[in-house]
């Protein structure tokens, strides 16, 4: 199954255009045509052409930028669709599918019936396609790309063997234009001249070498839904429905050894309006009795309107969560309970706002620690303890004094304080490799000042641009 114009078909399906249409792609400095529709090809355009040249050929050409990632996704959805014909469906390059219909064709009335069905459905979906069927994968590919029947495989040009372009050119220069020329030629010189790839392709096309297709497994889909015969509106009813949805979802997560990190409960009301309850968990989890109470707060806020008649639960984000050996020595209860608590608080103030401190390697007081969301980090040990540090830091507050020694008396926050003991200085140099406006004033000499009034403050002096500041307070 070959889709010669897959990218442009994808775009034209949503925005049908009469007349020439092309997708353009920036290659190097120039915009080139990436894929074009039949009308554009009739106008004399071809792939790889400069967009500017194409415009001069065909002024009414409509273009859009190419999005190869969306094309790949479109092909993946076609692969899912092709699963209706047979279970063995594999991708073939960027624009083809290969199906192993052995033993499945009779369900559609033989190979011809199956091809007719595919043709009808793809035509209805407005996708340009070329189908080929053969006893080998290579033969089917050749038939899809170069036409002809299976008996005529030998009459097809050598390019039908899925060979690189330079090999094809070299073979044609040798006068080997058709596959029949190749089979007639002696194998040993061919292998010596072109390497084993040519003969492998030839044997694969003729069925002398097996070529399995690799069907890609469907990625597991973590969602469940329930449709209700009568609309419901009570919180208890919705929670009961959610409980029913959670059980199979958690069983599926367990089978895949995954844990949900973000869950989304979509409630569809009778008037087709959707309401979503999102739950972000502090740790991957698949324990239904523990997840269910966490939904309560969100469900209580939902406006049920005239009633809810369909509920869908999806694990939007999952993380691997391996099965764990239960042992008498494991004390799993505490981290689990802490994670539950973080989740519950996080539904109110946002999961990022519950933070923990991590040590960082810096002498700058403001940068000697990191603040990380507790849900996405693990506690670390290894706190350096260079010198006593204040328990509270604030933005530097200037005080009136000059000179390198600490002031005997100073005013700070409308208090007059006397220095009873000064410990220091501790010189901290700015980290020049990081831009920081606060440290523009150069090195700082930090002093711990025990005032006679009791308060223990952290002062610093900036000798390079003289000034005194209070930056912190000790316990």
């Amino acid at each position, binding site marked *: 199954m070959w889709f010669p114009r897959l990218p442009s078909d994808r775009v034209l399906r949503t925005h049908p255009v009469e007349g020439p249409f092309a997708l353009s792609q920036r290659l190097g400095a120039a915009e080139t045509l990436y894929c074009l529709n039949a009308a554009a090809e009739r106008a004399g355009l071809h792939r790889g052409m400069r967009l500017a040249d194409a415009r001069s050929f065909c002024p009414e050409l409509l273009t859009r930028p190419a999005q190869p990632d969306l094309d790949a996704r479109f092909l993946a959805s076609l692969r899912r669709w092709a699963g209706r014909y047979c279970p063995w469906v594999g991708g073939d390059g960027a624009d083809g599918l290969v199906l192993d219909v052995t033993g499945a064709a009779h369900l559609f009335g033989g190979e011809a019936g199956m091809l007719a069905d595919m043709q009808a459905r793809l035509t209805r979906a407005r996708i340009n396609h070329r189908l080929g069927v053969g006893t080998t994968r290579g033969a089917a590919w050749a038939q899809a790309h170069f036409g002809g029947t299976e008996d005529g495989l030998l009459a097809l040009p050598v390019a039908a063997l899925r060979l690189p372009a330079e090999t094809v050119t070299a073979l044609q220069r040798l006068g080997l234009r058709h596959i029949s020329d190749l089979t007639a030629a002696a194998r040993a010189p061919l292998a010596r001249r072109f390497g084993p790839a040519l003969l492998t392709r030839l044997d694969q096309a003729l069925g002398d070498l097996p070529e399995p297709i690799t069907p890609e497994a469907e990625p597991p889909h973590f969602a469940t839904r329930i449709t209700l015969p009568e609309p419901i509106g009570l919180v208890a009813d919705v929670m009961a429905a959610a409980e029913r949805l959670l059980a199979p979802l958690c069983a599926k997560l367990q089978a895949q050894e995954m844990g949900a990190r973000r869950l989304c409960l979509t409630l569809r009301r009778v008037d087709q309006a959707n309401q979503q309850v999102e739950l972000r968990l502090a740790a991957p989890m698949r324990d239904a009795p523990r997840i269910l109470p966490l939904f309560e707060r969100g469900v209580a806020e939902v406006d049920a309107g005239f009633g809810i008649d369909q509920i869908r639960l999806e694990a939007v984000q999952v993380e691997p969560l391996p099965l764990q050996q239960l042992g008498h020595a494991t004390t799993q209860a505490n981290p689990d309970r802490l994670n539950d608590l973080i989740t519950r608080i996080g539904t*109110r103030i946002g999961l990022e706002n519950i933070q*923990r*401190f991590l040590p960082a390697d810096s002498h700058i007081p403001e940068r000697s620690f990191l603040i990380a969301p507790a849900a996405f980090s693990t*506690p670390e040990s290894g706190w350096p303890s260079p010198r006593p540090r*204040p*328990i*509270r830091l604030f933005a530097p507050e200037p005080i009136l004094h000059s000179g390198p020694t600490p002031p005997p008396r100073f005013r700070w926050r409308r208090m007059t304080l006397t220095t009873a003991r000064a410990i220091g200085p501790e010189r901290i140099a700015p980290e020049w490799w990081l831009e920081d406006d606060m440290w523009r004033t150069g090195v700082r000499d930090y002093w711990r000042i*025990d005032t006679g009034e009791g308060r223990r403050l952290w002062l610093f002096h900036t000798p390079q641009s003289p000034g005194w500041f209070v930056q912190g307070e000790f316990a």
Partner: protein
Amino acid sequence: MPIHLPSFFPLRAGRVHEVYGPASTGFAAIAAASAGNAALWVRETWQGDSLHPLGFLPFLNPSALLCAQTKDQTDSLAVAEEALKDGTLPCVVIEITRPLDLREGRRLQLAAKAGGTTGLCLIPEGMGSNAAETRWRATPIYDPAREDSTLMRWEIIKNKSGTIGAWNVFWNAQTHRLHVVPPVAQRPGPAHAPG
């Protein structure tokens, strides 16, 4: 008759207490350390000053400290109530910016009772709630004897179930213990001549 600090401190679990004064942060750190080495610190995002984890090092491991940043006091109280009720963390410290009314104070008390945890509100002076179990005033004192001292004066000025008192205390970082400095009259050494 002298009143002993151990009958008041560590703070009674299952209750919410209040502290104010310049040394209230140190008081809270010591309270969290003696309540069980893990704490949730609830504060509002807009507050200009910040906690410095290295400053907590003498008292408790900064890794055991969780910090919840809320947008206003209503959120702070909700978070604190949830954490107190849960009982996973033995101590919850709440920085209060506007006075609590009786209902809010009582809800915190009930939550603490349900979880068996200790709640501690850092209040600005004069913003106490009547529901609080105890109210403390913590002021630092200059200690001529030791450098790196944490000498403070703790006064208990409200107590629902006991008397009030005042002590000079300091925290010993090596032994992780709180030491009470005896009042001057009872210190060992030559007795003062009367008169």
